[in-house]
């Protein structure tokens, strides 16, 4: 995928996604997920295309996309690390772990490192509460993450 996609290219790819899914009852969320899967985020230019295909206003589509924490407005880093911030993980040191990650990566929650390599996102429960603290690295679950384990994960995604 090239970094400098024209609005037209985006529109064509988004249009294809819409055509494939618009038959579903309540197609907007499945379409937004698919668009994010394709681009890593919801490109500004996608909103208009989706709106047209679903017969909605652009503002409506934007309203929906912005409601949900999952949908990003900006391109994420090459790797996405999600760290659970919810209570069961807190009881096993998740706050310290999150702080450690932020320090190491020099980012705050939902930010991407300056080299565009890693995006750090908070998540509230991964259903791994009996293996806390939990994280998800590029879609893969990791349990009982301590600082050492996190450091190893960080060096793996850096290499």
């Amino acid at each position, binding site marked *: 995928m090239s970094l400098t996609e024209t609005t037209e290219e985006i529109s064509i790819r988004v249009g294809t996604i819409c055509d494939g899914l618009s038959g579903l009852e309540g197609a*907007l969320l499945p379409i937004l997920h698919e668009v994010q899967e394709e681009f890593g985020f919801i490109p500004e230019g996608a909103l208009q295309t989706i709106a047209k295909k679903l017969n909605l206003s652009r503002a409506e589509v934007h309203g*929906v996309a912005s409601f949900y924490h999952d949908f990003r407005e900006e391109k994420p880093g090459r790797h996405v690390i999600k760290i659970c911030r*919810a209570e069961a993980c807190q*009881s*096993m040191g998740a706050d310290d772990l999150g702080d450690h990650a932020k320090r190491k990566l020099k980012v705050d929650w939902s930010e991407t490192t300056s080299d565009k390599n890693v995006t750090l996102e908070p998540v509230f429960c*991964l*259903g791994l*509460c009996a293996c806390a603290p939990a994280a998800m690295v590029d879609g893969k679950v990791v*349990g009982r993450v301590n600082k050492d384990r996190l450091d190893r994960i960080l060096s793996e995604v850096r290499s």
Partner: protein
Amino acid sequence: MTVKIYIPLDSGSVALGADDVAKAIAAEAIKRGEDVQIVRNGSFGMYWLEPMVEVETSRGRLAYGPVAVEDVDSLFDAGFLGGGEHKRFLGHTQDIPFLKAQTRLTFQRCGIIDPVSLDDYRANDGLKGLENALRMTSEDIVKAVTDSGLRGRGGAGFPTGIKWNTVRQAPGDQKYIVCNADEGDSGTFADRMIMEGEPFVLIEGMIIAGLATGATKGYVYTRSEYPDAIRIMNEAIEVARANKLLGPKVLGSDYAFDMEVRMGAGAYVCGEETSLLNSMEGKRGVVRAKPPLPALEGFMGRPTVVNNVISLCSVPVILEKGAEYYRDFGMGRSRGTIPIQIAGNVKHGGLYETAFGLTLGEIVDQIGGGTASGRPVKAVQVGGPLGAYFPQELFDTPFDYEAFAKADGLIGHAGVVVFDDSVDMMKQARFAMEFCAIESCGKCTPCRIGSTRGTEVVDKIARGEDPEMQKELLADLCETMKFGSLCALGGFTPYPVMSALTHFPDDFKPHALDIAAE
């Protein structure tokens, strides 16, 4: 002879290395010329023993755990394929005390079978409930569910049979069964475990709900944080279609039922049933005012059953063994069994299905074995982020909807999160407010604005700005949220906040809160 080895595919086990262990065992078997078949099963839910590897031997299924990749070599050396002695040896799986003491009705096959094998499911009494239901009238199915005493396991505890009857009697050509698999509560993973470990029981439960109400289409709304559960559910649905369990003629009958999985997008409030329906319709996940009830005007404005995963998964056993069988477990108005999820700072974390009625102390100290850190238990949060924090003094509270309500708490989805004495309860109260602020759907002012005020008030106590007055303010704020909120997000956030304040007043003194800049 081929030796069968079971290694869970459950994401909790995978998070602890099950995939790597499976690879290592497969590679080592080839190297040693051993004839093995690796089955990826669900988890039994004993996470301190995961990855737990089982071997089928002439003596039955024997377990080893927790197994690390480094153990694999020595396991082969010890002859684990024949049940050899090893430091990780646990004996017969079914004799492990944590499992043996349970009453597994809903989770009876979880861990035992290959999750996506319909043959395995049938061979272990699967589909018997549905077969019975196909011979019954819709009234009789609803009556069985009502008589069983089953109450919704999603949190509100509403009688499932009554809900079904409303949908059954509602006029409409198209009705829906929506399974709420949003499972956003911290400390809960029962829905995930059963979708990953025994997806056919959910499919069976949803078909029965369809027969009972006249609904022909089902949706499972699952959170995006559960990619593995989504993949396995989808795979099972495909198998069910191929075997005519789903489709225009369910098991050759005149009933049609089909279903699909929908994915949420990281909004806790979308677990609330009307917000969920909006989300499924492609809208913002804003909570709807009731009435109209979803049972009458639900998905796409049509009659809709919205039930939690565990509610639906408890139906097949009720139809198989009868309402009385199920109702005979439990206490008071809490009938049947409940999968308690023991999590957080606890030695034996996992899922424990049992009849209602155990005390909180039995759950935490005896079954859970106390804290993982070895320090004393200070607080236990029951029922997720909207549930109360319990001190040791309330450990005699029995696990029962009414008893928990009486103790100013709730059972919710039955998650129990243990904290040791290093926890700062004022920080937990602040987090409850912060979480509400992050996840509020924005419809009611007390929830949207009150929660942000709440965090500020706690910060003022921490900084020592007239703490006594701030505490009163916090209590007032909770009162406003409790009575001025449309749904339980704003309405129940006061539970964790007020329970922390009431039971742990010593923590609400000026001190550094140890919170990194947001």
